[in-house]
């Protein structure tokens, strides 16, 4: 049996193809303004990559903010359930998932079957999300991918008090003007996210073992900040960015 999971996020669209509960391949592209088009495109990319025809797929499941826009999907499932399923597939001992995506951050608590028992999400605010980091990278004229390594060199974390993305950006510009080192500022940014998402995790009732997913999990600075704040070790998913799509593909087998 072949299934495809497609996760249409606010910034990127992801697709994972599975056969008999084994990953055949995955791909990631920018979402753009047309969810249906990007969903088709990312699916075709992964189908081509795996030499599979669309007619051979038994089930296509969509998830993410654009899930309802994919007319060709057989079923639409929220990313909460999909992220839980994706983490459970990778390691069935996982009991909590911390997912930080482009426009939201969420903490999901799982049971031994990989079913969601509780979850908490950020409210209508970009603080503690990937978008927050993007804005800060722009202000610092750095590539976001370098944030983790640079922050590792910091001697201290610059204090960033604002939780608002726009205000925090102004605060960072002030820190730059005051001559604060970039690595310290970046560490301060990571601490700020750690505080925000850490509170969310505690609210949801975090249980170990913990897996982190979403694009932001590739940022080792954020992971370190969360580990230190929560006092737990965090496994970063090897399918971090495509975990939602992976979970969707897994749910296609049910």
């Amino acid at each position, binding site marked *: 049996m072949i299934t495809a999971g497609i996760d249409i996020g606010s910034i990127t669209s992801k697709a994972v193809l599975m056969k008999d509960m084994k990953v055949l391949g995955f791909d990631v592209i920018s979402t753009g303004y047309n969810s249906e088009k990007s969903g088709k495109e990312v699916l075709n990319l992964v189908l081509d990559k795996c030499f599979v025809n669309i007619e051979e797929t038994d089930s296509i499941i969509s998830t993410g903010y654009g899930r309802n826009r994919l007319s060709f999907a057989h079923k639409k499932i929220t990313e*909460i359930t999909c992220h839980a399923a994706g983490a459970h597939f990778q390691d069935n001992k996982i009991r909590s998932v911390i997912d930080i995506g482009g426009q939201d951050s969420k903490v999901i608590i799982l049971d031994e079957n990989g079913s969601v028992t509780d979850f908490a999400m950020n409210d*209508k605010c970009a603080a503690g999300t990937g978008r927050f980091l993007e804005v800060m990278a722009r202000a610092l004229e750095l590539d976001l991918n370098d944030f983790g390594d640079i922050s590792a060199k910091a001697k201290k974390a610059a204090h960033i008090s604002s939780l608002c993305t726009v205000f925090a950006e102004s605060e960072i510009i002030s820190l730059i003007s005051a001559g604060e080192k970039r690595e310290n500022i970046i560490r301060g940014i990571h601490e700020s996210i750690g505080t925000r998402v850490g509170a969310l995790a505690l609210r949801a009732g975090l249980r170990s073992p913990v897996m982190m997913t979403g694009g932001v999990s590739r940022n080792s600075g954020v992971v370190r900040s969360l580990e230190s704040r929560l006092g737990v070790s965090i496994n970063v998913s090897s399918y971090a960015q495509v975990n939602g799509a992976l979970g969707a593909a897994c749910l296609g087998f049910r």
Partner: protein
Amino acid sequence: MSEKVKSMAGKNLSKLMIKGYMDLHEKAAKGAFCVWIAINVPAEIFAGFDNVVYGVPESHAAMCAGKGIGVLQCEKAENTGYSQDLCSYARIDIGNLTDGSKDSPSFGLPKPDLVVSNNNNCALISKWFDVHHREMDIPHFIMDIPFCYEPQKQKDQSYIISQIKDLISLIEKLSGQKFNFNKFEEAVFHSWEGFCEWKNFLELAKEKPSPVTAFDSFVHMAPFLTLRGTPVLKEHFKILADEARQNIKTGNLPVKKEKYRLFWDNIAPWHQLGKMSKRLSQMGANIVGASYTSCMGTVEGSFELYKWDEKDPFEYIARMMNSYMCPHGMELRYSSMKGAIEKLGIDGVIFASNRSCKPYSITQMDQQKRISDYFGIPAVMIDVDHADARKYSEENAFMRIGALLETIDSKRKN
């Protein structure tokens, strides 16, 4: 839900509301003494006077939001300097007054001679009505109603009654009219009968599938606010209950394939009723009960009807000032919700964190945990605003609601 043909009760409601607002304007224009009140000020006392009418700014603001002009009215207040962080009802009401109510579906409310607020249900309304007091140079009577962490004490009830009597004296003095106890008592009796019939209607939500959806009950609450103390309450809620009973027989139900029975906590998001009910219905979800509608006619700690012995009308209306959720502490709110969840066979709860009503929202995070722990049912929190659509994100809310339904499914499978 929104696709159905307008029900008999729906048609009757429209008729009542239009007539209610027209009568209000007409009587005020002919010289009636006009009072603006907060929703739980006991409006029955006005029936004790020959020529006193009342308007309810909160109800008017909800109507503006329901008709899609909430944001427009809010912006008018914001343009004069009021913060977006204030309650959207207050902003709609204040905004509406900036241009002579030109956009209001009811031409606003007639100019008041007196405003009456209270401080146990809404934290803001005394300040809000103070704006009217200053702008229109009219008196403002504030009722000081004790907040309840436990069932109301006798001394508190007596304190409320003394204030009701003070208010009556003030109206006598300001209007030059004499208060008639018998007419007032009759009005209280009408309200009591209305509450009884309302409860008969809500009780039908126990049926599976339910003929009742909170979206209907939200809307049909309106006469309790604007037509209190009148016989139309009983008549209208009887039409509503009879029609619901008939719908059970004919299968004309709000959610045809009811898979999920949900409970709602907070004020209705008036600007979203149509959209939200339609989307939920498509998902097989019915919000069969809501704390907001269940609390009418009840007192602290239970959503069961508060039984009046039909003796002292002052005592009864004083007790009814303690209906609603906001005047109650967490234990009392929990006790009320617990009873409703058990009675209605609820699968999941939506806690709507309302940006415009912090007194209602303040305990929700703890309630969510307690309800989930006690019943083992999932509960979710969504961000809403009862009248300002700018503070609501539909996809954000529905992602959470979707996850709630999926969690219910997975619990059923396991």
